[in-house]
C-alpha cells in the first residue's frame, strides 16, 4: 500500500466535500461583488446628480446674466426708441457687442421682425419674422432661450436669446436679440471638474448637442439619438449610447423656466464594473488559494485521521483472517468517533473469535487426545483376542479351525478400520493442536533466550559464543522459532571442538535471515542434503542424543513456512540459516491462510 497517501476514491470524495463546503465562500465572493457594484452605482448616481445640479446651476446663472444683460439693453432709451432713432440704437448695440465677446451677435428687432439695429453691419436686410425664437418672444413677452443655431451673421454655432422691448406706453415694440457663442457655454462645462470617465453635455430639446466635454470620446456625439432623448430627460437613467451603457443624470438650467436646454452628466457603466472587477478577481484568487490550501491540509489530515486508522483495521482484519493474532490498537476512551467505535467492535469480535477458537481448539485437542487413547485402548483387546485365537487354533478340529479363521479375519478387518480411524484422528490433532500461531516477535527476545541457555555449555567446551542482537521484528510463532534456534545452536556446539559459534541476523528485502555460524568440522557436500533427515548422524561418536535435532528443525521450519538452508566447508565450519518474514512485510500482505499444515 505504498505510493499515494490516499486512494483516488478517498481523494475524490474529500475534494468533492471540500468543494461543496467552499461554495458558500464562493457565493460570498459573488455576493460581495454584487453588493460592491450596487454601492458603486449608487455612488455614481449620487455623483452624477450632484454634478448635473451644479452644472445646471452654473449654466443657469450664466443665462440669468444674459437675461439681465438683455433686459438692460432692451430698456436702454436708445433701444426702446428704435423706431425713432435706429442709428443711435444701432450704435448702442454695436458698443454693447464689442464689449461682450461672448455674444456672436446682438441686434434689436422690430415688431414686424425686421432687424432694425444689428450689432454688426449686415450685407442685406434680415427678416426674422419666421424664426421660432421671434414667434416665442412675441407670445411670451418675456425672456426666452431660443434654438441652437448657426448664427446668421458670422456662421458660428450659437444659442438665440431674446428679451422683449417695451415702449414707454408698455406695449411690446420689438425684441433685443443675442446670439450666445456655444463655446461660452462650453467653457462652463470645462470649468466644472469632472471625475475620470465622466462626460458632460448641454443638450437642446431637438437633440442637438450645444456643448460637450470632453470633446473627444464623448458618448453624446453630435446629437443624442431620438431613442435616448426621452430617457435622457428623466432624472437618472441607463442609456445605451454608441454600444455601451451610460448612466446619465440630467438637470434643467437653474432659474430658467424652460426645458429647451438641459445639462447632462454621464458615466460609462463598464467603468463601474472595472472597479468591482478588481475586488472580484482578488476575492476569487483568495478563494482558490484557500481552497487549494484546504485540500492539501485535508489530504494530509485525512491521511492521519482517517486513512491510517482504517488501514490499521484493514491490516488487523487481514491478519485475523489469515490465522494471525491481531486485535488492532485500542482507541482512547475519550474517542467517541465512528472509527473508534468500529475499532472497539473489531477488538471485541477478535477477542470473541479468539476465545471461541481457543475453546474449539482445546475441545478438539481433548477430543483428539481422547480418541488417540481410545484407539490405542481399542487395539489392545483386539491384539489379545487375536493371540488367544492363535493359541486356540493349535490342535483344533478342522470345523473349529474354520470358525477360528473367520473370527481372525473379522478381527483383522476391525484392526484395519481402527488404523484408518487412528490416522484421521492424528491428522486432525496435528492440524489444530500443534499448528503455529503467527504474531510479531522481536528477534532479540529469542536471541537473548538462546544466549542465556547455551552460554554455559559453550563456555564449558571452551568455545566462544556470540549472539548479536537485532532490532528486527518478525512474523513467527515464538515457541516454534525458539525450538529451531535451540536445536541449531545445540547442534553447532556439539560439532565444534574449537573456535566459536556466532548467532545473528541479517535483513534482506522483507526477510530476516537468522544465521548460526560455527567453526566446527563442517559437512561434506555429498552429505548436505541428508543432514535434515531423521536420525542422520555424521558419526556415532558425537555422544548422546537421538539425532532428532535437525529433523525437528526441518519439520518446525516447514510448519512455519520458513526457508531453511545450510552452507558448509569441511574443516572450516558451517552456517545454518532460517529465513523469517519481517513483521512489517508480513503485515502488509499476509500470506493466504495455510490450507493444511505441511507434512
Amino acid at each position, binding site marked *: 500500500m505504498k505510493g499515494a497517501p490516499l486512494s483516488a476514491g478517498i481523494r475524490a470524495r474529500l475534494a468533492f466535500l471540500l468543494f461543496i463546503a467552499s461554495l458558500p465562500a464562493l457565493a460570498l465572493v459573488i455576493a460581495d461583488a454584487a453588493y460592491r457594484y450596487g454601492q458603486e452605482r449608487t455612488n455614481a448616481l449620487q455623483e452624477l446628480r450632484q454634478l448635473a445640479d451644479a452644472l445646471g446651476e452654473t449654466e443657469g446663472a450664466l443665462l440669468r446674466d444674459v437675461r439681465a444683460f438683455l433686459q438692460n439693453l432692451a430698456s436702454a432709451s436708445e433701444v426702446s426708441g428704435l423706431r425713432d432713432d435706429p442709428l443711435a440704437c444701432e450704435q448702442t448695440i454695436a458698443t454693447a457687442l464689442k464689449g461682450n465677446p461672448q455674444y456672436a451677435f446682438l441686434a434689436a428687432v422690430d415688431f414686424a421682425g425686421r432687424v432694425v439695429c444689428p450689432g454688426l453691419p449686415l450685407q442685406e436686410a434680415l427678416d426674422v419674422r419666421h424664426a421660432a425664437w421671434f414667434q416665442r418672444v412675441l407670445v411670451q413677452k418675456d425672456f426666452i432661450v431660443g434654438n441652437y443655431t448657426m448664427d446668421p451673421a458670422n456662421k458660428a454655432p450659437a444659442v438665440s436669446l431674446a428679451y422683449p422691448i417695451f415702449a414707454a406706453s408698455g406695449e411690446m415694440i420689438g425684441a433685443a436679440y443675442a446670439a450666445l457663442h456655444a463655446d461660452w457655454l462650453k467653457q462652463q462645462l470645462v470649468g466644472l471638474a469632472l471625475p475620470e470617465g465622466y462626460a458632460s453635455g448641454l443638450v437642446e430639446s431637438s437633440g442637438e448637442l450645444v456643448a460637450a466635454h470632453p470633446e473627444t470620446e464623448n458618448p453624446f456625439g453630435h446629437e443624442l439619438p431620438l431613442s435616448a432623448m426621452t430617457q435622457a430627460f428623466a432624472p437618472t437613467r441607463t442609456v445605451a449610447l454608441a454600444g455601451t451603457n451610460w448612466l446619465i443624470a440630467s438637470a434643467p438650467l437653474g432659474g430658467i423656466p424652460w426645458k429647451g436646454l438641459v445639462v447632462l452628466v454621464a458615466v460609462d457603466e463598464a467603468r463601474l464594473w472595472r472597479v468591482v472587477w478588481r475586488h472580484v478577481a482578488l476575492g476569487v484568487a483568495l478563494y482558490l488559494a484557500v481552497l487549494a490550501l484546504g485540500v492539501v491540509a485535508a489530504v494530509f489530515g485525512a491521511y492521519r485521521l482517517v486513512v491510517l486508522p482504517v488501514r490499521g483495521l484493514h491490516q488487523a482484519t487481514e491478519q485475523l483472517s489469515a490465522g494471525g493474532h491481531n486485535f488492532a490498537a485500542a482507541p482512547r476512551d475519550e474517542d467517541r468517533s465512528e472509527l473508534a467505535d468500529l475499532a472497539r467492535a473489531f477488538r471485541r469480535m477478535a477477542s470473541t473469535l479468539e476465545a471461541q477458537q481457543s475453546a474449539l481448539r482445546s475441545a478438539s485437542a481433548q477430543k483428539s487426545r481422547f480418541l488417540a487413547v481410545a484407539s490405542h485402548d481399542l487395539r*489392545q483387546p*483386539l*491384539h*489379545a483376542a487375536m*493371540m488367544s485365537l492363535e*493359541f486356540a487354533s493349535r490342535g483344533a478340529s478342522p470345523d473349529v479351525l474354520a470358525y477360528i479363521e473367520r473370527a481372525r479375519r473379522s478381527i483383522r478387518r476391525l*484392526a484395519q478400520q481402527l488404523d484408518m480411524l487412528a490416522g484421521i484422528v*492424528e491428522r486432525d490433532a496435528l492440524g489444530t493442536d500443534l499448528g503455529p500461531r503467527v504474531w510479531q516477535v522481536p528477534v532479540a527476545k529469542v536471541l537473548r533466550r538462546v544466549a542465556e541457555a547455551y552460554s554455559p555449555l559453550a563456555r564449558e567446551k571452551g568455545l566462544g559464543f556470540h549472539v548479536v542482537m537485532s532490532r528486527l521484528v518478525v512474523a513467527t510463532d515464538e515457541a516454534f522459532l525458539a525450538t529451531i534456534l535451540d536445536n541449531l545452536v545445540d547442534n553447532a556446539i556439539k560439532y565444534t571442538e574449537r573456535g566459536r559459534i556466532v548467532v545473528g541476523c541479517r535483513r534482506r528485502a522483507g526477510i530476516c535471515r537468522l544465521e548460526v555460524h560455527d567453526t566446527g568440522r563442517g559437512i561434506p557436500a555429498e552429505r548436505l542434503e541428508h543432514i535434515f533427515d531423521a*536420525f542422520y548422524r555424521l558419526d556415532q561418536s558425537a555422544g548422546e542424543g*537421538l539425532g532428532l535435532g535437525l529433523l525437528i528443525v526441518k519439520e518446525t521450519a516447514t510448519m512455519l513456512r520458513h526457508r531453511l538452508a545450510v552452507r558448509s566447508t569441511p574443516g572450516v565450519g558451517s552456517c545454518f540459516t532460517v529465513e523469517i518474514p519481517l513483521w512489517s512485510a508480513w503485515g502488509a500482505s499476509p500470506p493466504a491462510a495455510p490450507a493444511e499444515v505441511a507434512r
Partner: protein
Amino acid sequence: MTRVLIIDDDDELRSLMKEGMQAAGFEVADAPNGKRGLALQRMQPAELVITDLFMPGQEGVETLLELQREYPKVPVIAISGGGRRMKFDYLEVAKEIGAAACLRKPFEFRELLEMVERVLSRGASA
C-alpha cells in the same frame, strides 16, 4: 531355561504372551509397567526383555534407555501398538536407542517367537 522379561500394561495380552513363551520353554517374568519391570530385572536379570513402548507417560522409551544403560548386553525387543506420535515413529526411535528388534502390534504370537529366537541366536553367536 532362558529367562525372559515381558513388560506390557495390557494384562490380557501380557498373560497371553507369558503363556505362549512358557509353552515354548522359556522362564517368564512379567510386569505391568517399566518401574516394576526394572525392579524385577535388577532382582533377577533376564536374558531378553520384551517391552511395550507406548505406555503411560512415555515410560516405554525411558525403560528402554534404562535397560540399555544398566544391562547393555541384554537385548530388548520393542513392541508398540501406539502408532505414530508427533510424526515420530516410536519404533524407529527405539531402533535408534538400541532395541534389538521391533514389532508393531498387532502381531501373531509366532512372529514374536521367531523374533525372540533370532535375537537370542544373534546374541549367542556375537
